[in-house]
């Protein structure tokens, strides 16, 4: 319920802000057409109605499943989104799981071998990948891997190999963030009484590590993954722009720059909704991961 309110608020803010941007969208669609044509277009686009009428109409149509019409793409907004979500999904589908696996693996290694050379190398690499500006990494990778070595394509999207470079740029800093978080939380968790108690009871080392210490960092880890989603959206936009990768991020950027109202609104609503749905799923999964929270909530 609260989530729905946030989506609506985000929509209202977008709606108003977009209409404050100077420039006439009808004129920019029509180009050099005559004033009558532009006036007709304005009428068609509903731009002559007062802003609250436009908003009410828009909300009504959303509930009918109609996100409006993009005059630039000459297609329904729903279709435009359907045409571009796949590329973004492939990129995130490659980047996020790899980042989680790498982050967990190296974070665990660093915490188990605390203060060893492994820990130092992992920590240093994590800081390094986190500190590199993603657009700069993208430009450098295109130059080295795609142009000089010709191992992977530099731009476009015609198959999964096109998603590898963007996914690396998206996933690397995430892996760094995850590894650092896992390391710090594991070190804290291994110090806690339940881990010490397990050790004192003679529970095998590995079981203590995974079943006790590691299990207790899953909730904060998941919270972190959820909180990184917002950053991922922004990063997608930047990365897709640099790679010329035809996904949702590129659509948003172009749509805002062209003042394609309905497309921007549709995409923003979609993103805010996804953001909230995923965070709700994460909240629910706490119940499965942590019996203490389960108990506090009155059972599952």
């Amino acid at each position, binding site marked *: 319920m609260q989530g729905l309110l946030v989506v609506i*608020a985000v929509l209202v803010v977008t709606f108003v*802000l977009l209409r404050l941007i100077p420039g006439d969208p009808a004129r920019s669609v029509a180009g050099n057409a005559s004033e009558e044509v532009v006036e007709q277009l304005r009428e068609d686009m509903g731009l002559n109605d007062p802003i609250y009428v436009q908003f009410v109409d828009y909300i009504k149509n959303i509930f009918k499943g109609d996100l409006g019409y993009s005059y630039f793409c000459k297609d329904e907004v729903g279709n435009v989104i359907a045409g571009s979500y796949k590329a973004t999904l492939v990129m995130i589908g490659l980047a996020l799981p790899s980042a989680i696996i790498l982050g967990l693996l190296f974070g665990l290694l660093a915490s188990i071998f605390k203060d060893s050379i492994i820990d130092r190398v992992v920590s240093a690499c994590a800081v390094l990948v986190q*500190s590199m500006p993603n657009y*700069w990494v993208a430009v*450098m990778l295109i130059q080295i891997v795609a142009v000089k070595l010709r191992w992977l394509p530099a731009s476009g999207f015609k198959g999964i190999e096109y998603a590898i470079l963007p996914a690396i740029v998206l996933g690397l800093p995430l892996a760094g963030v995850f590894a650092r978080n896992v390391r710090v939380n594991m070190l804290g968790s291994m110090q806690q009484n339940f881990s010490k108690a397990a050790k004192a009871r003679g529970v095998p080392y590995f079981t203590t590590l995974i079943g006790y210490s590691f299990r207790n960092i899953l909730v904060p880890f998941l919270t972190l993954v959820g909180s990184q989603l917002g950053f991922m*959206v*922004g990063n997608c936009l930047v990365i897709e722009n640099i790679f010329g990768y035809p996904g949702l991020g590129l659509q948003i950027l172009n749509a805002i720059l062209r003042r394609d109202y309905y497309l921007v609104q549709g995409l923003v609503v979609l993103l805010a909704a996804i953001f909230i749905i995923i965070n709700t799923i994460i909240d629910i999964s706490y119940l499965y991961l942590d019996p203490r929270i389960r108990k506090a909530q009155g059972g599952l």
Partner: protein
Amino acid sequence: MAAKVKEASAAKKGNWLKSFLKFCKKNPAFTIGFVIMLAIVIIAVFAEQIAPHDPTLNNPKIALMKPFTDPEYILGTDYIGRCLLSRMIFGIRTSALLCVTAVVCAVTLGVSVGIISGMNYPGKTDSVLMRVVDVQMGFPFIVLVIILISLFGTTHPALILLLALSFWAPYARNIRGTVMVEKEMDYISAAKLMGASKLRIATRYLGRNVLPGVLPVVPMDLSAAIVIESLLAYMGLGVQPPGISLGNIMGDGKNYIATHWWITAMSGILIVIMAIALTLIGDALHKHFDPKLKD
């Protein structure tokens, strides 16, 4: 009397410096980060004196010179023959000015909202403020940035505003959580009994106690701000020429990257160095202020 007070304050200052040096000695990573940032600040302040050339002076005859070939232009020149070292020094100044101001604004706003919200919990003011925070955090940040830039242009105040907007919300939420716990403590009740005003409680009592909690985040946000600022300039949405930003230099180099990659590479490495230094500082502060992380 006056001399005595002066002496006492000097002793206090000495103590402060001493404990700072002790902290540096204990945290070599912090010291490295701190020294780098100190150098960056000095470069930013004394850009005119340090830069070997006028960063806007072009000389097409020596365009696209390789770095480390001419002692006159140590880092080479860009596509119209401007000294890259000088441009990077002035780029640091722009980045530092914009990002420090923006983060200071974000912290001020976030901490104020957080304290007000926390002191009024549970209540209407708190609910309204927290919903605003929710919306700000749920809004796809970069979309907001592009819309605001289309609205206000790319003037320095506009850039500071949008950078500040992108960082304040987590501070507010964080501080509110601490204030909610802290305001139930005895010293706050004591202050209330002694007749301290709300403003005094907020600033003298709560403010002092909640600020250390967010201090470690400040360097992290500063580094994120530097990256975002340079990104905007790179995409042509930030500082506009003739203004110089590290992002601008990379953006200029973009067209020549196939043959003259170092223009883009060097400015990027400079940003990486700043970001790493700030991360090291943030980590050390985090460890210092979070008792759970102490070994």
